[in-house]
């Protein structure tokens, strides 16, 4: 191609001429480099999600809510209110402090997520739901998550998805 010959020609010019581009200038570059990014299971990720109860598990790569107990339970009763302590934990395995919170897609606050510092604490007062309720975790720290489900006087929808979000601007 004429263009390649032209560029090669420019590289070998000793002096400027009317057709010179200018020493060292280039108008296009495409540089390929390798980026090694590891994807790990939830227990080993930067933002780790650990099962802490019978109702969840880490048997796959993603924290899963199976809602099954050894005793044979598989769900909640109709028209019931339930609370669960220490369902799972969120752990900061990064190197800077982050604020973490949970978004869910329920309606009418059918469920609410709260934060506690140990796995068997029936305290539901510290919300960890929504960007307005970040829970700060320094590197290495973890927070346990409690859940309240209200379907007794509530016809709202249960969620099917949660998003666990971490943001360093909300950290300590």
């Amino acid at each position, binding site marked *: 191609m004429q*263009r*390649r010959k032209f*560029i*090669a020609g420019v*590289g070998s010019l000793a002096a400027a001429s009317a057709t010179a581009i200018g020493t060292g200038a*280039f108008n296009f*570059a495409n*540089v390929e*480099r*390798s*980026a*090694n990014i590891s994807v790990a299971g*939830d227990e080993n*990720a*930067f*933002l780790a*999600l650990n099962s802490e*109860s*019978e*109702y969840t598990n880490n048997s796959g790569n*993603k*924290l*899963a*809510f199976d*809602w099954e*107990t*050894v*005793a*044979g*339970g*598989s*769900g*909640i*009763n*109709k*028209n*019931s209110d*339930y609370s669960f*302590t220490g369902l799972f934990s969120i752990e900061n395995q*990064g*190197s*800077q402090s*982050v604020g973490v919170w949970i978004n869910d897609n329920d309606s009418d606050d059918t*469920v609410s997520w709260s934060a506690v510092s140990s796995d068997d604490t*029936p305290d539901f007062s510290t919300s960890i739901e929504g960007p307005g309720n970040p829970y700060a975790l320094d*590197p290495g720290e973890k927070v346990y998550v409690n859940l309240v*489900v209200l*379907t007794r006087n509530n016809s709202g929808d*249960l*969620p*099917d*998805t*949660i*998003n*666990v*979000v*971490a*943001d*360093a*601007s909300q950290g300590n």
Partner: protein
Amino acid sequence: MKRRRFITALGGLTAASGLTVGSGAFNFANVERSVSISVVDDRNAFLKLTQRGSGERSEVDGHPDTIEFSIPGDDEGDYPGGNPTDPDGLGTDSVYRFNQDAAGDETGLFGITNQGAQPVEIHSRQETTQGVPEVTIFDVNSGNLLTEDSPSAPLGIGDQLVCGLEIDTHGVSVQTDAYEVSLQIIAEAPE
């Protein structure tokens, strides 16, 4: 291509160069996980409720199946077999206990089984008791009423509590239609 060779020569970069993100740091993450909570039949729930005995003072109905109580039972008029008594209801200003269904073929009116992951104490509560029958569950084996102030002993994982209903009709008027009362069956892990 000649152009690529030219650029590589100009740059003088080594072949092993790689892109690195600051080690261990991340400043934002958004992880999506599915959570679906199932609403199941009472017999499959973490707080399993089962009806006991024939006579339909306790029965299972609906989608999902849930336990419900009728006193007298829907089949009360069939018992005792051969010489049924067919009562219309409870007397007023009285306290009754029902520790079995009309047929008397099983102990207890219903069962509560702990299918959760830790022991729980059981009691019942009724929001409104003014002018309506007051219903409280009791442990058929001990005879103890199970109230908020005096719940059951911790019920172990997999264990069942066999229960009956105590009904107080003091101040409750006689009427043709049945009173519809909402009974809350509560299980709470001791601290």
